[in-house]
């Protein structure tokens, strides 16, 4: 009986093990991970050089991890064991509270803040010092500001972060938008804020820059589900978001120009709305230089925004108060190039970035 037991034992395990192995060998390679929004590693180049220098081996390991059959399901299983069996509060630093997903960010990164301050200061000194532009800066709290401390998660000290920026950017006027925001203003599965929730923030920014905005919008919603950047990292099954966006005649008549790709576009890129990251529908996503001309403006005021991806959704809400808005992303545009796109003369200039970008060392070189 015992021998039979061992035989069955071995056979059952062998069938499972070899089946999974055969699938690993035979499964065609996928090109892209939708949940992680990244291209997947492909079979590495195999030759004498790559074998001898070991690069084939290390790349092969990455390839096998990326191309593992049912990879997303295995990652979900891991996330579930981590959360429900081991009771771990986060999975790879991603946590979920009341349906809101966020990423732990526990320490003020002095190096990152210094890099941001130095970058902004260099830009200011090069283009704006001794000119008649009006320079402002504001920062957008990341979701942890509303979630972490209240739910027992470690959080970075936002007072320290703000204080360091206030000292470093004391030549600019600070516009505080923290009190105008709450966790409900952000997507559940993504890092970004919802455009339909930040109308008051836009009014406040405009007001602080001496511009009145009083616009009525129609709220639109995309049909397709929006799985934000945290969705794939969390690995747990959660409901998708829906992207909402605001329209009116002014926005419909704006002329948007993408200088990076030398093309005209719309405020809302509906091709990207149906793509992998629908949030990129707002002014076409990560683009270094964009201008928005408002032919119906009652003013000739211009606004220049140094921004990150959060700026894409709020910039359209500032259009009403300006004849032209120029959006510059200092992460992708070298400071020496800025003069090619903007002549600084009597504009409002707003440096608007999220705390997660400001506190990230690789954001500003």
């Amino acid at each position: 009986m015992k021998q039979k037991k061992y035989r069955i034992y071995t056979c059952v395990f062998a069938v499972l093990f070899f089946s999974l192995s055969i699938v690993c060998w035979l499964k065609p390679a996928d090109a892209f991970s939708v949940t992680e929004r990244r291209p997947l590693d492909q079979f590495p180049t195999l030759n004498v050089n790559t074998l001898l220098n070991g690069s084939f081996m290390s790349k092969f390991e990455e390839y096998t991890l990326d191309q593992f059959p049912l990879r997303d399901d295995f990652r979900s299983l891991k996330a579930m064991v981590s959360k429900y069996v081991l009771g771990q509060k986060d999975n790879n630093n991603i946590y979920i509270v009341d349906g809101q997903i966020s990423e732990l960010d526990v320490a003020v990164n002095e190096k990152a803040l210094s890099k941001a301050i130095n970058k902004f200061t260099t830009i200011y000194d090069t283009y704006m010092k001794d000119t008649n532009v009006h320079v402002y800066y504001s920062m957008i709290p990341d979701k942890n500001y509303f979630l972490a401390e209240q739910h027992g998660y470690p959080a970075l000290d936002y007072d320290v972060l703000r204080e360091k920026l206030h000292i470093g950017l004391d030549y600019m006027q600070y516009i505080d938008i923290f009190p105008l925001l709450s966790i409900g203003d952000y997507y559940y599965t993504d890092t970004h804020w919802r455009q339909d929730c930040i109308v008051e923030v836009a009014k406040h920014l405009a007001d602080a820059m001496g511009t009145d905005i009083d616009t009525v919008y129609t709220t639109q919603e995309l049909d397709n589900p929006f799985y934000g950047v945290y969705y794939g990292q969390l690995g747990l099954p959660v409901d998708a978001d829906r992207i909402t966006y605001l329209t009116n005649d002014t926005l419909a008549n704006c002329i948007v120009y993408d200088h990076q790709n030398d093309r005209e576009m719309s405020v809302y890129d509906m091709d990207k709305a149906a793509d992998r990251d629908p949030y990129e529908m707002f002014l076409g996503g990560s683009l270094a230089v964009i201008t928005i001309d408002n032919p119906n403006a009652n003013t000739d005021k211009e606004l220049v925004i140094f921004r990150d991806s959060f700026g894409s959704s709020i910039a359209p809400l500032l259009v009403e108060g300006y004849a032209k808005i120029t959006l510059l992303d200092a992460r992708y545009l070298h400071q020496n190039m800025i003069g090619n796109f903007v002549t600084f003369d009597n504009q409002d200039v707003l440096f608007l970035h999220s705390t997660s970008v400001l506190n990230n060392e690789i954001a500003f070189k």
Partner: protein
Amino acid sequence: MVFSSIPFLYYFLPIVLLCYAVAPAKCKNMVLLLASLVFYAWGEPKLVLLMAVSVVLGYVFGLLIEKHRGTIHAKYYMIASIVISVGFLGYFKYADFFIANINMATGLSLPLLKVALPIGISFYTFQLISYIVDVYRGTAAQHSLLNLATYIAMFPQLIAGPIVRYTDIAKDLTERVHRFEDIAYGIRRFVIGLSKKVLIANQLGELCDIFQSSGEQSVLFFWMYAISVSLQIYFDFSGYSDMAIGLGRLFGFKFMENFNYPYISKSVTEFWRRWHISLGSWFRDYIYIPLGGNRVSKGRHLFNIFVVWFLTGFWHGAAWNFIVWGLYFAVLLVIEKFFMLKYMERMPKVLVHGYVLLASVISFVIFDAANMASAFAYIGAMFGFGGLPLVSVETLYYLRSYAILLILALIGATPLVKSIANRIMTAQWTESTLGTVLSTALELLVLIVLFVVSTAYLVDGSFNPFLYFRF
């Protein structure tokens, strides 16, 4: 290549098992050797030659020693072989340590050699030395280069032990049997080892990394780190040993046990009878006893103990903290041997266990430290000398987040789980046909769940270093 990796589990191992299964008996060692060379070359494409040279030299010296047995020449050959093996180890592992210390002591600026440390060199060198010394002591030399190379290079134990003695598997090299009982046992040991490594050691390692990079440390966080790193090292290394023993059994070899629940020891002396058993017994048989062991004067006995523990520490790494780690145990063992053991037998168990756990936790803080200054700072901080708060928000968060894992690890470090499993599997109800089927199904289910969940952790994670690869 590491056992707990997707390339090993789902690409390398199935092919090797298939080739091994279909190969005729006389070719099985050849399959194992080729697989082992591929396994080694995967991590060290060029340094596989160094291992090959070591094996060939060991083979030649073994034959020469046997040929000249009983003459002074045999001794010369043994010494020559040991000098060459230790020379390789010294050059690749310790040269830069000596150069750096000479530079520091003399003010010279001798350039460092910066040679890559061949994976597993400490393990296969010790296996070769044990083979050569055993042949000198009378064991028959291996006349087949293939069989000797299979013994030294066998991938299950090649890079992180256990340090298998030639005499233990000499018979298996030529006439082993393959039984379903052994294969089932091998599967079970391998899956348990994989789970210990992936589900416990790697997760504790992440907690240690979080601690190291934390900007909000506290006294409690230092203790969490110290306990986590002690458990991580145990589960990492004993998990690897379980996998090695399991793999060995799949191929028909019976390797010696390497761990026996060291954290339940009632003295540090007992701890070292339960921790890295193959290394401890190697030093006993090839260093301590040849030096005279305890059958010498008290002074010489002390000297022998300190030499062995200095070497034990130094074997683990070319850094002062490893030497201090070894000597720290020497001091504790001497104190126990000459003073404390007789009192400890009468002391309350809680006190004795507490002492052993505290001693081992402090030892692993030294072991894991980047240098001695850091080790002293860590130990000081654990006892409140770092000027840190007792707790912090971050500490409490990670304590809550890792509490279950730490409790599971603490339970898993005792024989409790094994004892419960044995009780279930040998209960009377399992003796009937239905009972056998149910108990087999239950055991299989547990193993499959562990294997699938371990795979899920591997697919998701990137944190997967084996600590003992650096030795």
